């Protein structure tokens, strides 16, 4: 079942299904390695509720909730 990364509960292991959004936005995330099939996980949420700290390919990124909502994920 497809949902967005923003809705994914903390710590649940999912994988990228697709990245939506503008062309430049999609390409940037794809080029950084967030291609379909890549495992991703939300590690923590910032104290003020946004952004999210996610783990991708052994590294960690900070990504805004609104942007995470553009990333469709599948259960892994």
């Amino acid at each position, binding site marked *: 079942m497809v949902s967005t990364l923003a809705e994914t509960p903390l710590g649940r292991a999912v994988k990228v299904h697709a990245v939506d959004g503008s062309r430049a936005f999609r390409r940037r995330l794809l080029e950084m390695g967030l291609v379909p099939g890549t495992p991703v996980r939300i590690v923590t949420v*910032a104290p003020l509720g946004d952004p999210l700290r996610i783990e991708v390919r052994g590294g960690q990124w900070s990504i805004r909730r609104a942007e995470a909502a553009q990333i469709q994920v599948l259960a892994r």
Partner: protein
Amino acid sequence: MTHASCHDPAPVRDPVPARPHLVLAGNPNVGKTTLFNALTGSSAKVSNYPGITVEAASGELTLPGGRIAELHDLPGTYSTNARSAEEQIALDAVVGLDGAPTPDAVIVCIDATQVARAAYLLLQCQELGARCVVALTMVDEAAGAAPSARALAAVLGCEVVAVTARTRHGLDELRAAVDRVLRSERRPLWHWQPGPALRARLDAVREALPASWRSATRYGAPLPAADDALALWALTCIEPRTGGADDDELEVPDALRAAVVAEPAPRDDEAVLARWAWLDREIPPLIQKPPDRSRTERIDRILLHRVVGFAAFLGVMTVLFMSLFWWAAPVMDAIDQGFKWTGDQLHGVLGDGVLTDFLVQGVIGGVGAVMVFLPQILLLFLFLGFLEDCGYLARVAYLMDRIMRSMNLHGRAFVPMLSGFACAVPAIMATRTMERRRDRILTMMVVPLMTCSARLPVYTLVIGALIPGSRWVQGLLMVGMYLFSVVTALIAAWVMSKTVKPLKAKRLPFVIELPPYRFPRLGGVLRMMWGKSSMFLREAGTVILACSIALWALLYFPRSEPTPAPDAGALVTQAARDDAQATALADQAHQLEHSYGGRLGHAIEPAISPLGFDWKIGVGIIGAFAAREVFVSTLGIVYAVGTDADSHSEPLRVALRDARDAGGKRAYPPLVGLSLMIFFALACQCMSTLAVVRRETGGLRWPVFLFAYMTVLAWITSFCVYQGGRLLGFG
């Protein structure tokens, strides 16, 4: 395993040039700068790319056999697909476009803990036909997780050298590898094959590439695969014309744009996905085990904790802020005193005269005005260097993003804005920790609104002299001025991000990496601290010195014959205690009134009288351009109470309180005091700020914009306060 492109080009062998041109590319946080410093040693020079706020470092690298190569450090990027100024520079430098020389070889840094992602940039460089050497960094940190250099080289199809810049391990091997690759053929390497549809698009677009972009021109021999790579870049990055002057739009020849937009489907995803498919197939087998992040994870559990993390953050920021205020203050005072002492000594030797005044007040005073910034700049960059190096600065952005984002500012803008409470000059230099130019400039445009420490003496004088009420009321007003500045800065950022085209928020993702915590290297931090400071002295300092001297001349010339006091009338009433002294002070006041600056003060009176200011305040405002606190001493001269007047000096306060206008009413009722403080809060009364913005943005456009918007904002707000107050009967 790896193979050259389908076009098998004739081998290209250009002779190794006498002074090879090398570039160093890599993702952010891969230890690129450390490697650059280790390779170039003391020859490194930091400057800006012309016209834009992107730092360029270059230095010399000695190859085996003694040949000297020029090494250019590129901004850290994840890709060469230009969307930001940094990526455009990376592409231009790797390929040799837009006036950049074609590099003879490219050193690509690959972080051993993040091989696949870092190798993505390498694939793009290889496709473009660059001669690549990989420097495998962070091998010590990756420990067992690092791939073997030999296995990685076999897969990537280029030389790979493991380096540890800290211990200088591998640097000689890297130099030797660069030397070898410089003698090799230039051969574009594609690790994937475009499908038929993309192939057709590439063929069409390749034909539209301008001659100066083609490999035949840049490399001296036609390499169709390298031209394909540029065609792919064009397909990826060139958008249909949007009509208006979109800041995002790339400057490309019309024919090329037409070829790119001829078909609606860009098909650029195919390239990204194919590269990643290749990386995901080839790289994981080389990695023994996932890199160990447990230490970073343990630290993050504390530092990013909801409560503890926030408290730690406030603690770090408090120390940073207090150090700028309190640790720097004694040094700044000492510098001030030192220059005053030097001036006095010189005065003693040379005696009175125009030359003496020029040297003492103009030159020595001007150099002092520059040097006084150094303690804060050194301290701030010492802190920033450590925080950046250990990985905490990225966490600051993570913690503060929610607040800063609501004003369309970058999370990392927090530290510069906080530093702005001490002084806008180091704060503006601190905007460099942000990657994107748009974020940097927007932050630079609002940092000068923060209540810097130079405004403090002005507020203290005005509140002490003109605002009635208990100490409590006066204290609250001071707090109010601080709050006012924060609110104005945040609102200004929001408004500008909505209205000023180059500052509008782009729809790029705000994805920042949270790198592993690392021990900062003192050498690197000190080196950067010194680099920034010397750059400030060299480039902003000279402008500040020149402006100081010009301002001195403005308030000094023309010299007029000393006239007896009566002419100065009201000016001397308060100073008439000691006749001799009073005459000297009155002379000074007279001199100032009739200087060019004084006349300018008179001339601008019509413009500032709606704010409640007379010409004397006008002169003070002009003098304050050297530094805001100079307002106090300038008023000291105008009111003939001496140049040494400070914000607590009672004679000056009394003089301001008792000043009368032509009609015999109080010249400065409390409402004028408020209007004056608002004016100082909002106006960009500081040539050093403008000089440093000019230096950081590489042009006059942004300092002019900054000065204009702040002056207009200050005038309108003061006007509303003063006229509104009068309407309400407070005049």
